């Protein structure tokens, strides 16, 4: 649980040099306080390399992709597909298995809707159909984005939702396993956006496979922060968002095993995803085009490609080590503050860089306000994981989350701020 555990690779990340790439980090807030941005778990900031890549694209190559026969359209298409290829390499996947979406939420909804669409999509799609008696398994720690779409899929199809529970130390309770022969989908986060817990993906995939269920990985809190290979993890689907990994908002990725994507009915329909359209009916293009209806988020894909290049240049091992060091420092320091309780694992084993906590006698919103007043930006509330908060008997937590640009001094500012909040509200 201490900073001593930090791999040597952490030294590979020159945080001062990194910070210089992020224009927003030099601004001040609340009457001249330096910004201490500890809310990257909600959305990260963008380095100028990403901003420049998007701008260069828009000032030189912008056109509708896959649709035009002029030079700009060629260049735009190349930039878009090159981004897909680089992002695919970054997550250990083939470019043809990557679908661009607007965010991870859309990616998960895409899978859920394709499954209900399977009911009317003919024999190829039969393996995706669900009905009464079938079950979908999630976990109690899911972000709403990987919970509500499955609730709604159950509503549409008559299937039943089941879930793994969470143990008091913030780990997945593998003994609460609801997977049975009726299970058709097992959807789970790679890392909790509240607890920081990294889930045992291999074990969950093994159990899902054993009953022939499909696996859907919510990789929003893993792809930005450590080396991830979807083919290595052997999941069937995975989703993540650009804005949490130094890339633009408005772009996300759904990964799908190619044989599954090829058999899956479309979700959004319209231009660019068709094979043949008649008034009487239409047929659809092969993946990934089948799942990219309409003019896509072109410059955003280009920006995400640049973000992946940026992260790769630092090295994802170094990113992981850097965040582990900061997390260890935060866990150690918060453990020293009486009345502060971390919700989630208190050591660094299978744990990423988000730290949620409660302060006895001071509501999370009030802690956050004191922090904000000192320039420290954290998130307060249920962080779109309301059932998890209910399970821990709290309405809201304070969550600090780190990325490549954070420093040990910023962790110290957080802890100082927590003490100041206790003092302000008279509980210490």
């Amino acid at each position: 649980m201490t900073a001593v555990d930090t791999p040597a690779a952490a030294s590979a990340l020159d945080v001062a040099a990194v910070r210089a790439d992020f224009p927003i980090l030099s601004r001040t807030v609340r009457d001249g306080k330096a910004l201490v941005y500890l809310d990257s778990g909600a959305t990260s900031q963008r380095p100028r390399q990403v901003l420049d890549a998007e701008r260069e694209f828009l000032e030189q190559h912008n056109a509708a992709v896959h649709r035009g026969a002029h030079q700009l359209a060629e260049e735009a298409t190349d930039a878009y597909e090159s981004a897909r290829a680089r992002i695919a390499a970054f997550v250990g996947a083939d470019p043809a298995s990557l679908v661009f979406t607007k965010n991870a939420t859309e990616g998960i909804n895409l899978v859920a809707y394709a499954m209900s669409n399977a009911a009317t999509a003919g024999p190829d799609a039969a393996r995706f159909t669900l009905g009464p008696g079938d079950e979908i398994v999630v976990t109690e720690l899911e972000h709403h984005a990987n919970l509500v779409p499955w609730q709604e899929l159950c509503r549409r199809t008559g299937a039943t939702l089941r879930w793994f529970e969470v143990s008091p130390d913030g780990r997945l309770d593998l003994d609460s396993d609801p997977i049975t022969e009726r299970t058709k989908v097992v959807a789970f986060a790679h890392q909790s956006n509240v607890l920081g817990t990294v889930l045992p993906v291999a074990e969950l995939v093994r159990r899902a496979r054993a009953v022939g269920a499909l696996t859907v990985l919510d990789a929003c809190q893993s792809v930005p922060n450590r080396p991830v290979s979807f083919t290595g993890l052997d999941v069937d689907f995975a989703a993540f968002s650009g804005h949490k990994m130094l890339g633009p908002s408005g772009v996300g990725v759904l990964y799908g095993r190619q044989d599954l994507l090829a058999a899956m009915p479309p979700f959004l329909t319209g231009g660019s995803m068709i094979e043949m359209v008649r008034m009487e009916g239409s047929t659809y293009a092969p993946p990934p085009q089948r799942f990219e209806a309409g003019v896509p988020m072109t410059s955003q894909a280009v920006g995400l490609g640049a973000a992946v290049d940026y992260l790769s240049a630092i090295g994802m091992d170094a990113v992981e080590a850097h965040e582990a060091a900061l997390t260890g420092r935060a866990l150690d320091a918060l453990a020293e503050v009486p009345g502060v309780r971390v919700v989630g694992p208190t050591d660094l084993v299978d744990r990423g860089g988000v730290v949620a906590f409660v302060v006895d006698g001071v509501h999370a919103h009030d802690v956050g306000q004191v922090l904000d007043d000192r320039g420290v930006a954290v998130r307060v509330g249920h962080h779109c994981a309301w059932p998890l908060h209910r399970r821990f008997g709290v309405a809201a937590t304070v969550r600090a989350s780190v990325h490549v640009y954070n420093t040990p001094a910023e962790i110290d500012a957080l802890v100082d701020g927590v003490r100041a909040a206790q003092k302000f509200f008279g509980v210490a």
Partner: protein
Amino acid sequence: MQLEQMYQEIILDHYRSPHGAGLRDPFDAESFQINPTCGDEITLRVRLDEGKVAEISHETLGCSISQASASVLTDLVVGRSVEESMRVLTAFQEMAQGRGQVEPDEDVLGDGVAFAGVARYPARVKCALLGWMAFKDAVVRVSGDVPGTAGGTSDGKDAT
């Protein structure tokens, strides 16, 4: 430090010993409201008597602002006619949503003027209004309609 502008002593006092806290019987209507971003909750009961607000009681699971606001609400509306209380509510809401631009009227709002500082923090406006929305909802449940207000939660922004 701007904190003191927001957390005025009056607010902290109400927060430490909130008026109307603890649910009481009998009551005419009860309203349960939540703040979907932070999960804060209030259960508020109202008892009317001959067109007047006879009693308010509430159980608030929330931050200092939402607790203090429910307390101030209790002070401001108990004993008033329903119609008057709705005028106070409107004034409070206008101040809270005024981004610090609305000058509150102390004659109408009493201790409520202390929440003027909260109005400059948009994320906290919902906290300040949680109890008030519960009050309004409870009154509607008793009387079927709310005299003297227009819209309120129906603009989709402040519904809880």
